[in-house]
């Protein structure tokens, strides 16, 4: 077993995380062969319900590997949930055309020890050029967990774009397969690596584990990488642990080569928390600017 040290987790430094695990059944594809057997959406145990084209629901399992030191759900895990719900809804709404994610906002309430995060998305607007989605996040007991929005640009369909089934009817899909589930913290599992913790400089390799249907880094995982960068930078600047609770994500270009490099600029730190800006570039594509993020963090008692 390969032994690696996670960059950030609740476990003490030196904890050994297994990086391989058995898989005993075939994956459930969304589009063709996507996602592969080993994919972050499977380890999040994403379950989704949709089909009426206007609303959709999904949920993910939350455990110690998707929580931070204060017990809050990793905002990147929630952003990935939102991205999955919003992307599915928008793709359905835009048929026969295709979509590109333009932005994602996430505003969270600090609720610790959530067991399962649930998302209910609905189409707010479908026009000629854009689709706008909003998403309510709740806990397994129905308590409010956060608000999210996403907007998408509608693009003319190209060869190779996934085909969305237009058959109608409510569908229920489970991403998890036998063996799914994190064995290590989500940042570690996705490959987030610290370059300079205090400045929030982290990298993320582009692997099949985090790809989207277009072969680039999944939008929620870009947000997760930004949250990882933001949390490190704010915590270092504040001198105490800060949890990221807001993300305003603007997608500029797809990260198709990797690794993705995230760098943070702390804007302000005060008694309740602070703000930080993050830029994510595709280092393998001439440091092309892919995503900008404004994040807000608060101290959680």
């Amino acid at each position: 077993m390969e032994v690696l040290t996670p960059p950030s987790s609740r476990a003490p430094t030196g904890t050994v995380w297994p990086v391989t695990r058995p898989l005993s059944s075939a994956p459930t594809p969304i589009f063709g062969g996507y996602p592969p057997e080993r994919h972050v959406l499977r380890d999040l145990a994403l379950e989704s319900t949709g089909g009426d084209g206007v609303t959709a629901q999904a949920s993910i399992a939350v455990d110690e590997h998707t929580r931070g030191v204060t017990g809050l759900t990793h905002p990147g895990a929630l952003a990935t949930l939102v991205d999955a719900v919003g992307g599915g809804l928008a793709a359905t709404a835009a048929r026969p055309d295709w979509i590109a994610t333009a932005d994602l906002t996430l505003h969270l309430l600090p609720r610790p020890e959530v067991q399962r995060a649930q998302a209910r998305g609905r189409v707010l607007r479908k026009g000629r050029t854009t689709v706008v989605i909003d998403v309510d996040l709740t806990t397994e007991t129905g308590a409010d967990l956060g608000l999210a929005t996403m907007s998408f640009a509608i693009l003319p369909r190209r060869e190779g774009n996934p085909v969305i089934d237009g058959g109608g009817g409510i569908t229920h899909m489970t991403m998890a397969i036998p063996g799914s589930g994190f064995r290590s913290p989500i940042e570690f599992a996705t490959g987030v690596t610290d370059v300079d913790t205090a400045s929030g400089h982290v990298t993320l390799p582009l692997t099949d584990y985090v790809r989207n249907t277009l072969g680039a880094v999944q939008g929620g995982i870009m947000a997760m990488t930004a949250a990882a960068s933001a949390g490190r930078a704010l915590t270092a600047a504040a001198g105490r642990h800060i949890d990221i609770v807001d993300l305003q994500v603007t997608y500029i270009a797809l990260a198709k080569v990797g690794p993705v490099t995230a760098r943070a600029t702390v804007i302000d730190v005060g008694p309740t928390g602070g703000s930080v800006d993050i830029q994510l570039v595709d280092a393998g594509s001439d440091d092309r600017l892919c995503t900008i993020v404004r994040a807000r963090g608060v101290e959680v008692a």
Partner: protein
Amino acid sequence: MNGFDHADAGRSIARFLGLTMREVGPSEPGTAQLVGTAPAAAFVRSADGGIAMGALLTLADSIGGLCGGLAALPGWVVSTNLMLRAVDRHAVGPLGLESHVLRAGRHATVTEIRITDAGRSSALVATGTLTSAVLQPEGGPPVYERPLILRAPEADDGPTIHLDDFLGATASGPDRLTLTITDQLRNPWGILHGGVTAALVDRAGRHATGTAATTDTALHYLSPGRIGPVTATAFPYGSRADGTLVRVEVRDAGNDDRLMAVAVTTVQ
């Protein structure tokens, strides 16, 4: 033909805010950069003495939209998403504005906006991002001499009323404001100015929670306000150490209550 054919049409907002904008850098297709100034006057401050988020949002929408529009020529743009975070609203003034293009595609432009305090060594007041959809307007885009300079229209004589009075929104419930679409609140296209919608969101969030200031806004423009009256209803969502999250819906009551905008704000 559009409102841009008349030099003063749709410029009441710029006149009120005293907003001057100037293009800097090369005038090349697919890119643009603008700088601007506006006074940090008493009539744009909220109860805590800081510049009202509504004023900052309006300035951001104005300069970011113009920047995106120049980059989209020969098309033009309509705002779809404005995200702005206040850093320190207690500006001495005047305010300095800067906007540049992050991305200019065939379908959308993304511009970044920074608002600084020239009276305090250019300290950061707010930062944000405006995403706009590219359109091919009937009658063509506005025609500007480049590099563009848009000076603030001369202010009306007499004392300037407060931003809240300029908007004219009135409480129509504990969590709701109502606004009449007057000519001075329209943009050159004849619809409700995006900045006015944003300022209404700011006021509605504060009205419903009894708070003094908005510190963060993420606003999606969904459809234009054409008829009115316009209602803004705020739904307080939950509290955190840095304030209260509020969801705000803006509707055109005179147009079948059509949903115009949805926003999430943080107030304190």
